[in-house]
């Protein structure tokens, strides 16, 4: 059987949910070979559990010290050594850039942001803020495809998960963009936004106070999101922005509080299974796509709802 190279994301020693989805999709095409930058550690067992026959560790320090280009060289060398039927990446900003460079190196076609991939490599994309669905295929070379979170339900399928070190040869040319310094950001302690089952987001309507949004999120074990208006006002960090130039989320439930529902915001949340909106303005476009719309002031509705949830759970 042919194999498929899958770029795995391991954060703080744990395999991300989109990576498990990617392995599940990869198995439709062939036998997954997972690539981990750094050391796999406990993550190797998890990757094996979801179908990775091999786990290749790329430990070269250049991959962390310089942007993108060293990782692209490593993946290219892995592809050359394994002759896969396809190369799959998660659709993060960095992974898309690695994929782009690998496609050029391979002289192969690239498809980004697939929401589904078939066994024959046919990929579906959701474009124009979810207004259109596009189906396409790579026609030249080894298909290089990046896949969005929530494209499949992760399904375990035990495989060996044999860990092997892969020694990449990183050229000097790839060491062009040096990470001169790096400051870590504090973690929020809440679920990760793109993989969260429930997201509660606040917009300009919060007036700058995200307290009620966070309180409901915590009551529901949800992640917190924000509109660009809220981020641009400095009320919430950009890492939590949902939309075209922020994160794409696809939770079971999306709660939009004080968000009008501009097309660029919808682009990041339109695949949510259910949407609830709280907005003072009954004409707000967000209501057009909501399963439940509440015309009201979020400053009264959210705290009362948090209280109600607390009582219900007690």
């Amino acid at each position, binding site marked *: 059987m042919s194999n498929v190279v899958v770029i795995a994301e391991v954060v703080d020693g744990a395999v991300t949910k989109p990576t498990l989805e990617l392995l599940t999709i990869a198995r439709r095409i062939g036998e997954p070979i997972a690539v981990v930058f750094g050391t796999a550690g406990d993550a190797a067992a998890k990757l094996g559990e979801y179908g990775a026959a091999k786990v290749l560790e790329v430990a070269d320090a250049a991959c962390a010290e310089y942007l993108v280009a060293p990782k692209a060289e490593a993946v290219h060398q892995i592809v050359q050594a394994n002759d896969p039927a396809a190369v799959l990446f998660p659709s993060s900003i960095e992974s898309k850039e690695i994929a782009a460079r690998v496609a050029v*190196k391979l002289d192969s076609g690239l*498809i980004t942001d697939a929401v589904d991939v078939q066994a024959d490599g046919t990929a579906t994309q959701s474009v*124009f803020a979810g207004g259109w669905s596009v189906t396409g295929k790579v026609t030249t070379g080894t298909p290089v495809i990046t896949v969005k979170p929530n494209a499949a339900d992760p399904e375990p399928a035990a495989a060996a998960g044999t860990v092997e070190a892969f020694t990449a040869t990183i050229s000097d040319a790839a060491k062009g963009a040096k990470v001169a310094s790096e*400051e*870590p950001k504090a973690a929020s302690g809440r679920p990760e936004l793109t993989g969260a089952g429930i997201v509660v987001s606040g917009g300009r309507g919060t007036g700058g106070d995200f307290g009620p949004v966070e309180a409901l999120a915590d009551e529901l074990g949800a992640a917190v999101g924000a509109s660009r208006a809220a981020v641009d006002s400095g009320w919430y960090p950009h890492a939590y922005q949902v939309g*075209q130039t922020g994160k794409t989320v696809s939770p079971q439930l999306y709660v939009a509080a004080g968000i009008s529902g501009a097309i660029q915001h919808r682009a990041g949340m339109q695949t949510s299974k259910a949407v609830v909106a709280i907005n003072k303005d009954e004409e707000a476009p967000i*209501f057009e796509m909501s399963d439940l*719309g509440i015309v009201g002031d979020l400053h009264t509705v959210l705290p009362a709802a948090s209280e109600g949830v607390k009582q219900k759970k007690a």
Partner: protein
Amino acid sequence: MKIVTLVKYVPDATGDREFADDNTVDRDAADGLLSELDEYAVEQALQIKEAGDDVEVVALTMGDDDASDAIKKALQMGADAGIHVCDDDIHGSDAMVTSKILAAAIEKIGPDLVVTGMSSTDGGMGVMGAMLAERLGWAQVTMGSEVSVDGGTVKLKRDTDTSTQHIEAALPAIVSVTDQSGEARYPSMKNIMAAKKKKVDEWDLDDLDLEDAGMEASYTQVTETNERPPKEAGRVVTDEDGSGAAELVEFLSAGKYL
């Protein structure tokens, strides 16, 4: 120093964006404009120009006749000249082919720095900067929220989910900037007038010594495009004396979100 800023002409996201019968973006369905995310690229190029001596900013676009509007806007903002790569055979080019054409145009212009947007607002791939860096063999310094040039070095601040990074690279380099990099300026009346006298060159594939382009030469094929039926709106209730919160709790409970 010479800077090329990439400007893409895209259908307005607030209009009716559609696909044409040949599965390419229908450029007639919605009004076109300079991609908002490329305005940030033009802005940063202009700021680098203003901070330095003897810096020329050239706006480069690839697209059909109307794409000259993207150049016009960049010139009105303050770019010095424009290059429009335009050829009937370009229609339907995918990212791989587009990057070949843009790389050839960049080599012909011979800049020290290329500034692009973080992603186009129509295709939205966010890969062109990386592809061009790979083709040109230049440093790739992408997704900046702050960018500056200091001698022969470009410096960039970028945010990942877990950290803030400071990147440095020797020129020549490809930079992309995000919408966090600072609002783009509005063209002043003076610049709008001045833009009329600025030079815009049109190049075709021959000028770039390229033969194959367009759908035939592309590495991917779109087989189907379908408009999604709009989601149906659900129930909308008006909050009165706490009824809104009660409805919400009931919805959460009934949907087993608790």
